[in-house]
C-alpha cells in the first residue's frame, strides 16, 4: 500500500536527518588527535577549565605559545565567573570533565577531592614556596596559581597608615574624613566584599583558625563571646555610622569613588588594581586591618590547578607535561608573571614590576607578615546565603548594635548546613 510505503520512507528520512545532525557534530570532537605530524611523541590534546575571566585572553595566548614551542595542544574552556562551578559540576556529571581545572583551597577543594591526581612526585611541586602547598592526606593535590592578598587599600594622598592603628584612631579618621566631605571607608554590596573578606580578620587572628571554625560549627564557641569578634562588631558599627552605606555601593562604584578620591580607604585586594587603572592612575597602597592589634595583610592562595584523575593515563601525562612547562620553563614563568600578572607562589619564579598593591602583598609574603584566608574554610555557601543577609540587615537597621550583629551571625552559622 502506498500509505505504508510513505510511512516507512518518512521514518527513514527522519532517522537519517538525526544521524546527519549527530554526525556533523561528531567531526568537531574527533579532530583532536588525528594529525600525527611534527614531534615523535605527540601528546593527546588536553583541556583546561578555570573561573578567572580576567586571564581568559592570556590563557588562550598561552595555549598558542605552548603549541608553538612543544607541538602539543591544550584547549582552554571559557566560563563566566559566577557560572563556573555549575558548569564544572555538570561536565563532571556527564563524564566529560576537563583534564586540568581550578579550585579554591578549603571547602571547595574538599568538595571535588575524589578527582585529584596525586602530584607529590612531580617536579613542578618541588618549587612551591613554604606553607603554600595544598595537601589532602599528606599528598600534594594541586599547584597554586599564585598568591593574593587583601586588607585596607588606601589612597596615599589621603591616608597616613601610621595614624590608623586601632579602633579609636580608625573612628577618629572616619570622623575627620566625614568633616572634610570624604567617605573614610567603603565596603561594597557583593557578599564577599560586604562581609566575607572583612570577617576574615577576626577568624585569622585566632590561634588556630581552622580549629576555631570547627568548634564554631559544633557550637562549642561563639563569635559573640570572642574578644577579636567583639572588637570587629565595633568596627562594623563605626563603618555603618560614619561611612557610606555599602549596600548602595557596587564594586564598580567603590573603585570609582576610590580612584577619584571620594573614598579614602576600601577593603579590597590586589586583584582590584587592574580595575582601578580603568579609572585613573592613583597613588594607592595596602595596609592591615588594625583589628585587635593586627598588622598583617590577609595573604593566601586564591586557587590551585588540579589534574583530573578520571582522565586517561595519556592525558594525565600530557597535563603533567603542560604544568611542567608552565612552572619550570622560562616561557611559562614569564607568562605567569608578565601575562597573568600573578604574584607567584613559587621559589623559582622571580617577581618584578609589580603594581603597588601586589608589591605590598609580595613584601608581606616575603617578610612572613601575613594572616591566612580563614574564610576558605567556612562551610560552603555560608557567606552568600547566610552571612550576607544578616549583614544587610545590620546596615539597613541603624539601631542594631555590633554585639547584636555577632549574635545574629552566630545564630545563622549554627543553623547553616555543614558538610
Amino acid at each position, binding site marked *: 500500500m502506498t500509505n505504508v510505503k510513505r510511512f516507512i520512507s518518512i521514518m527513514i528520512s527522519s532517522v537519517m536527518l538525526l544521524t546527519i545532525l549527530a554526525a556533523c557534530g561528531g567531526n568537531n570532537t574527533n579532530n583532536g588527535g588525528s594529525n600525527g605530524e611534527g614531534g615523535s611523541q605527540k601528546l593527546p590534546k588536553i583541556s583546561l577549565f578555570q573561573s578567572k575571566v580576567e586571564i581568559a585572553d592570556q590563557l588562550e595566548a598561552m595555549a598558542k605559545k605552548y603549541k608553538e614551542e612543544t607541538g602539543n595542544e591544550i584547549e582552554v574552556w571559557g566560563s563566566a565567573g559566577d557560572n563556573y562551578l555549575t558548569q564544572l559540576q555538570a561536565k563532571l*556529571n556527564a563524564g566529560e570533565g576537563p583534564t586540568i581545572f581550578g579550585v579554591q583551597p578549603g571547602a571547595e577543594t574538599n*568538595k571535588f577531592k*575524589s578527582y585529584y591526581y596525586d602530584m607529590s612526585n612531580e617536579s613542578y611541586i618541588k618549587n612551591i614556596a613554604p606553607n603554600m602547598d595544598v595537601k589532602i592526606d599528606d599528598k600534594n593535590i594541586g599547584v597554586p596559581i599564585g598568591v593574593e592578598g587583601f586588607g585596607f587599600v588606601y589612597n596615599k594622598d589621603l591616608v597616613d597608615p601610621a595614624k590608623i592603628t586601632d579602633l579609636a584612631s580608625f573612628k577618629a579618621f572616619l570622623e575627620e574624613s566625614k568633616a572634610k566631605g570624604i567617605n573614610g571607608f567603603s565596603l561594597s554590596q557583593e557578599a564577599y566584599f560586604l562581609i566575607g573578606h572583612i570577617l576574615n580578620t577576626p577568624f585569622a587572628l585566632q590561634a588556630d583558625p581552622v580549629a576555631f571554625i570547627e568548634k564554631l560549627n559544633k557550637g562549642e564557641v561563639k563569635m559573640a563571646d570572642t574578644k577579636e569578634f567583639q572588637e570587629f562588631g565595633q568596627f562594623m558599627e563605626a563603618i555603618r555610622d560614619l561611612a557610606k*552605606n555599602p*549596600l548602595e555601593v557596587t564594586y564598580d562604584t567603590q573603585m570609582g569613588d576610590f580612584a577619584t578620591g571620594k573614598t579614602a580607604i576600601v577593603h579590597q585586594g590586589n586583584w582590584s588594581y587592574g580595575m582601578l587603572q580603568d579609572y585613573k592612575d592613583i597613588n594607592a597602597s595596602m595596609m592591615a586591618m588594625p583589628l585587635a592589634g593586627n598588622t598583617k595583610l590577609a595573604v593566601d592562595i586564591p586557587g590551585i590547578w588540579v589534574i583530573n584523575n578520571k582522565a586517561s593515563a595519556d592525558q594525565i601525562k600530557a597535563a603533567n607535561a603542560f604544568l611542567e612547562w608552565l612552572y619550570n620553563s622560562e616561557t611559562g614563568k614569564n607568562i605567569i608573571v608578565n601575562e597573568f600578572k600573578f604574584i607567584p607562589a613559587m621559589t623559582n619564579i622571580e617577581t618584578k614590576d609589580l603594581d603597588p598593591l601586589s608589591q605590598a602583598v609580595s613584601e608581606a609574603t616575603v617578610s612572613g607578615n601575613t594572616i591566612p584566608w580563614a574564610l576558605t574554610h567556612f562551610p*560552603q555557601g555560608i557567606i552568600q*546565603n547566610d552571612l550576607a*543577609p544578616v549583614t544587610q540587615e545590620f546596615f539597613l537597621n541603624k539601631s542594631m548594635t555590633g554585639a547584636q550583629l555577632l549574635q545574629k551571625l552566630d545564630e545563622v552559622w549554627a543553623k547553616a548546613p555543614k558538610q
Partner: protein
Amino acid sequence: MNASKNRAWYALFTLPLLTIFSIVVLIPFAIGIYYSFISWDGIPANPKVFVGFDNYVHIFQDERFMKSAWLTIKFTFLALIIVNVMGLALSLLVTSKLRTSNIARTLFFMPNLIGGLILGYIWKFIFTDVFKYVGENTGMGGVFFNWLLNPDYALYAIAVVFAWQMAGYTMIIYIAGIQGIPDDMMEAAKVDGANAWHRLTKIIFPLLMPSFTICLFLTLSGAFKIFDVNLSLTGGGPINSTEMFAMNIFNEIFGYSRYGIGQAKAIVFFVIVAVVTLVQVYITKKREVQM
C-alpha cells in the same frame, strides 16, 4: 484495519517529538525524583545515600524555603496581572489603525531580546541612579527612591522588570489571536450597531480565550521559574526578602551542595504549581470557543 492504520498515523505524528522530549525532559525528571530520596552533594564520584523521605521532612521545617515559596506565589500573582493587562493593552493598541503601530510593535518587543543577566544589571542602574535622581529633583521621594534597598519594595522592582520583559512577549501571542478573528464577524457586529466596548467584550474577548490560556500559562511558568533577573537585580536581598523559589533551590544545590534536598524542594513545588496551573488551563480551555 482502519483502526490500526489510524494508530500508525497517530504514532507517526507524535512519536518523533515524544521520543526526544522523553530523553531530554522526562527521563532526567524521573532521575531527579529518585535523587530527592537520597543524600548527595552533586559530585558524581561521591557517595549517594538513600534516606527515604528525610529530605521531604526536612524541607517542611525549612522556614526560609516556606518563606521563599510564599514570596514566589505573591510575585507570580502580581506578575500575572501586570503582564497580561499590559500585553493585552499593547496588542490592542498596535493592531489598531494608528500610524505608529508598526514601529511600536517592534519597540515593545525589544525588551525581550535582552536576555537574563544584563537586563537585571541595566535595571539596577535605573533603580539606583535614575530613581534616586528623579526622587531628589521632583520631590516625589516617596515613590522614587532605590527600591532595591527596601525589603518591602524590592519584590515590586523585580515585578516591574519582569513585566517590562514579558509584556511584549504576551503581546505577540495576543496579536496572533486578534489576527485570527475573522473580519466579517467584526464587520457584522459593526453593522448591527455594536459599539467598541461591546465588540471588545462580546466578540474579541471570547474569541481570544485560547490566547488567554496560553498567555496566562506562559506568564505563570515564567514567573514561577524566574531566576536570572532575580539573581542579577537583587541577588535575593536585601535580607532575603526576594529570594524566590528557583534561587532557593539553586542555593541549596550549588551553594550548600545538598543535592537531594534541592531536588525534593523542586518536586514539592512542582506538584503544587502543576495542580494550580492545570486547574487554570482546564478552566480557561473550557471557555474556549471551538469553530
